[in-house]
């Protein structure tokens, strides 16, 4: 267990000490209740019929044979269910803004006609058991008018491309205009004129699926006009407001329950079509309904990371100083816009002239959406490969190039609340022994197995925001913390308990956490955007302070009395920008006969502010890194170009990491306290994956002397590059 913490923060009593999860026992004994573990008497089972075509108009659906199967209760199709599924909408990146949803023209229904990707829901069946439901799904007859399809975003923008929406394939923005997302600073034309050397390159990244272990399931239960949904969601509060909006009922008539969930990584943000379908089936059938996705349903019917094509043009002076960066990018959004399709990364460089133009494009692949650092791992792969290449071509050590050109102020303008990026890089280079492992001459190792070293770095948002917490103290000295978090695996429940114990000055054992139920817990932002610890953790401190004031005023409660402290803070950064920092160093061994890549050493240095729980924080970093290695080397939801069918929709086909693929990851925390957030804690969850892909790709270049420009970097591509 290698673990190093710097001691630059004042030690605290409970926070900062490695602590097993407060619910670890439930997790190792099988007692933790996940959504699909719940059963109700008289509960029906649901299955979904999905489109076998990448693009087709439904002429007719005949459900009569399916309805005739004994035990089938309800069937929904686009004909009898016209619920708009608003989550993500087309308003990309502004999913939670109801005003924008009102004006968007390109509506996504739960059941659409035409269908726009293989796997799009066409019908849903509720029946007495799952076997009957499956049987009925097979008996639904759909008459499709098969339409042409397009899979790649650049193809989809061509004049003669099949139109997936009447307005064309460039996704409309929030003003219903077909415009790319554009960002400019300075003047790139002048920047290139002032450059001594200009480099241009194209990078592409694949569709990778979240592939969380728990397939989506949902149980809907109506009591009168009140709906209770047991569903794996990363944010119970947002899931409730989304579901209420989409079903047209008041939020207080919706209860969302999610206690344990089997991972999400962005796949379970907001509400899902599964939630709406289950709610509608249960309403129609007049009985509780459990919808279960198969693994294939989950791969093709939910969402993954958007594939991108990135064209970079970079200008530098002869001493290797950046003068201009230009990016033209294309993101494949699938048939509907569920997120921005942005491509992040340019901001980590200091450069006076920048232009970024990104086209979010509809395609007939499955929909793209949130996945651990939505726009960053693919964007950082592109820009950090590009810059690594520039460094080599300028005959510079990549570490020196980064130290010369990395961000010092956010967008060269706003100050950071603290700045430790240079520390992360220097500390990592030293621990990793960069000078010994990096090959000044790439591909120079003798023999077929060649070693190489790569670096990538990151600065990642750690913004503050609103949240709530309530803490109740009873006469027995038990502190009950009510927070609207769900525990998707990051350990939010334990984190909140640690923060509460610290703020209250009581032993952890005296703290209990009530979570994951909108009827019992106040609003929390939910486990997305690496915000739970920062936002809800801060609310817990404020609620503890409120409770302590009451204790000071009224004394400890006696008998049946209780004291309650609550807080709804919405702090801001006073014009500064808050970021987590990190640098990843990786060594690979590439077998040039077989094309096989093995990671032989990995050092990840992170400043995530103060570490609340080093035990779980380390798990987060390692998990993100290993996911990044998988994305770099083999994960890919491949589509057949001839027929638009997904070919690798499953764990084996998609090639997620296994025990045997996973190297030991060395984690180093450089702790800091910038005076914001709970005891100075910053974001962790996403940031660990963000630089990992680029670091691996750069190490492969150093090993074999060939720049790998298309993800994933599979054996065939390596052998092809070496041929």
């Amino acid at each position, binding site marked *: *267990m290698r673990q190093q913490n710097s001691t630059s923060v004042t030690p605290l009593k409970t926070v900062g000490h490695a602590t*097993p*999860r407060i619910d*670890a*026992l439930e*997790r*190792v*004994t*099988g*007692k933790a*209740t996940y959504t*699909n*573990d719940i*059963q109700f008497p008289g509960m029906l089972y649901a299955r979904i019929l999905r489109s076998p075509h990448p693009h087709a108009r439904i002429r007719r659906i005949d459900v009569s044979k399916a309805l005739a*199967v*004994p*035990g089938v209760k309800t069937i929904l199709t686009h004909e009898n269910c016209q619920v708009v599924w608003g989550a993500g909408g087309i308003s990309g990146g502004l999913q939670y803004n109801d005003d924008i949803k009102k004006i968007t023209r390109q509506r996504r229904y739960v059941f659409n006609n035409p269908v726009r990707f293989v796997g799009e829901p066409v019908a849903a069946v509720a029946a*007495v*058991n799952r*076997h*009957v439901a*499956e*049987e009925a*799904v097979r*008996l639904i007859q759909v008459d499709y008018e098969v339409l042409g399809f397009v899979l790649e975003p650049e193809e989809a923008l061509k004049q003669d491309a099949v139109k997936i929406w009447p307005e064309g394939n460039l996704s409309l923005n929030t003003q219903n205009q077909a415009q790319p997302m554009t960002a400019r600073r300075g003047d790139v034309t002048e920047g290139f004129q002032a450059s001594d050397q200009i480099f241009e390159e194209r990078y592409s990244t694949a569709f990778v699926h979240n*592939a*969380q*272990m*728990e*397939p989506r399931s949902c149980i809907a239960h109506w009591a009168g006009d009140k709906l209770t949904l047991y569903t794996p969601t990363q944010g119970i509060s947002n899931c409730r407001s989304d579901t209420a909006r989409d079903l047209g009922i008041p939020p207080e008539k919706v209860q969302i329950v999610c206690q*344990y*969930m*089997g*991972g999400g990584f962005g796949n379970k943000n907001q509400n899902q079509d599964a939630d709406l379908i289950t709610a509608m089936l249960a309403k129609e059938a007049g009985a509780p309904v459990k919808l279960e996705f*198969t*693994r294939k349903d989950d791969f093709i019917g939910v969402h993954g990371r958007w594939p991108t094509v990135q064209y970079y043009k970079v200008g530098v002076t002869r001493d290797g100083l950046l003068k201009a960066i230009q990016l033209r990018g294309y993101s494949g959004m699938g048939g509907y816009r569920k997120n921005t399709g942005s491509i992040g990364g340019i901001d980590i460089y200091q450069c006076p002239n920048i232009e970024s133009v990104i086209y979010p494009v509809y395609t007939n692949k499955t929909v793209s959406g949130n996945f651990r650092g939505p726009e960053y791992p693919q964007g950082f792969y592109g820009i950090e490969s590009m810059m690594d290449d520039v460094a080599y071509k300028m005959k510079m050590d990549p570490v020196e190039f980064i130290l010369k050109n990395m961000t010092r102020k956010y967008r060269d303008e706003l100050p950071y609340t603290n700045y430790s990026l240079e520390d992360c890089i220097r500390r990592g280079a030293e621990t990793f022994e960069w000078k010994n492992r990096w090959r000044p001459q790439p591909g120079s190792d003798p023999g077929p197995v060649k070693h190489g070293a790569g670096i990538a770095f990151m600065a990642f948002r750690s913004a503050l925001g609103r949240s709530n917490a309530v803490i109740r103290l009873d006469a027995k000295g038990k502190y009950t913390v009510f927070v609207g978090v769900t525990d998707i*695996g*990051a*350990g939010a429940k334990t984190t909140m308990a640690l923060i509460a114990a610290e703020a209250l000055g009581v032993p952890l054992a005296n703290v209990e956490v009530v979570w994951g139920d909108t009827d019992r817990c106040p609003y929390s932002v939910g486990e997305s955007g690496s915000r739970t610890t920062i936002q809800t953790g801060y609310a817990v401190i404020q609620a503890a302070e409120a409770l302590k004031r009451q204790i000071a005023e009224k004394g400890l409660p006696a008998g049946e009395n209780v004291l309650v402290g609550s807080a709804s803070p919405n702090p801001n950064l006073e014009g500064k920008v808050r970021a987590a920092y990190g640098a990843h160093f990786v060594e690979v061994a590439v077998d040039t006969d077989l094309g096989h890549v093995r990671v032989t050493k990995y050092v990840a240095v992170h400043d995530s502010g103060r570490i609340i729980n080093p*035990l*779980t924080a*380390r*798990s987060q970093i*390692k*998990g*993100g*890194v*290993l*996911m990044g290695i*998988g994305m770099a080397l083999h994960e890919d939801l491949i589509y057949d170009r001839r027929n638009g069918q997904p070919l690798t929709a*499953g*764990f084996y086909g998609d090639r*997620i*990491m*296994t*025990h*045997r693929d*996973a190297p*030991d*990851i060395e984690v180093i925390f450089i702790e800091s306290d910038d005076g914001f957030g709970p005891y100075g804690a910053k974001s962790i969850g996403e940031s660990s994956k963000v630089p990992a892909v680029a670091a691996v790709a750069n190490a492969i270049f150093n090993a074999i002397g060939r720049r790998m420009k298309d993800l994933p970097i599979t054996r065939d591509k390596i052998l092809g590059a070496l041929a």
Partner: protein
Amino acid sequence: MSKSKPKKKISRRKFLKGTGAALAVATAAPKIEAQTPAAGVATDAVPRSMIRVTVNGTERRIEVEDRWTLVELLRDHLGLTGTKIGCDRGECGACTVLLDGKPVYSCSNLAVWADGRSVETVEGLAQNGGLDPLQQAFIDHDAPQCGFCTSGQLMSAKGLLTRNPQPSADEVRAGMTGNLCRCAGYNHYVEAVLAAAKGGSR
């Protein structure tokens, strides 16, 4: 992953008739007859069998539908929901249980194949109120993150340590490579299994 031998012969045709939908091929599928599945079997016409199975040390006689998988029996009909379904097609290992002491994917075994055999699930690991050393090591090393793969990882590890009480790290990785973890807690799972093995030898 060990393969289990079916004791009770259910023909593939009969099996498919019952399941209706096409299932992924089971790891230990019985003799395959080339037949297309018949459609339209009502619930009450589903073939059933009485089986005798020892679950976590308790012998039970249960009437099961022939189409039920072992994990379906455990989760839906015996209330043992600690065993999870991650893929239902023999890819992820979340449903791993011990069948006569050997780890198997319970999604890829029919319930009727457990007739006359013993099944151990995560609920049976803790004995006499004390955690299995593996469970304690999993807690100490923060091996479970979301926890969805954990029961399967535990049962694979249990099977591994039974046949190889002192494995090397590479042997642990090899023994558990059929158990996926998307949180990628792999380092911690391996550390935990090695620690449990070490503790057990004292």
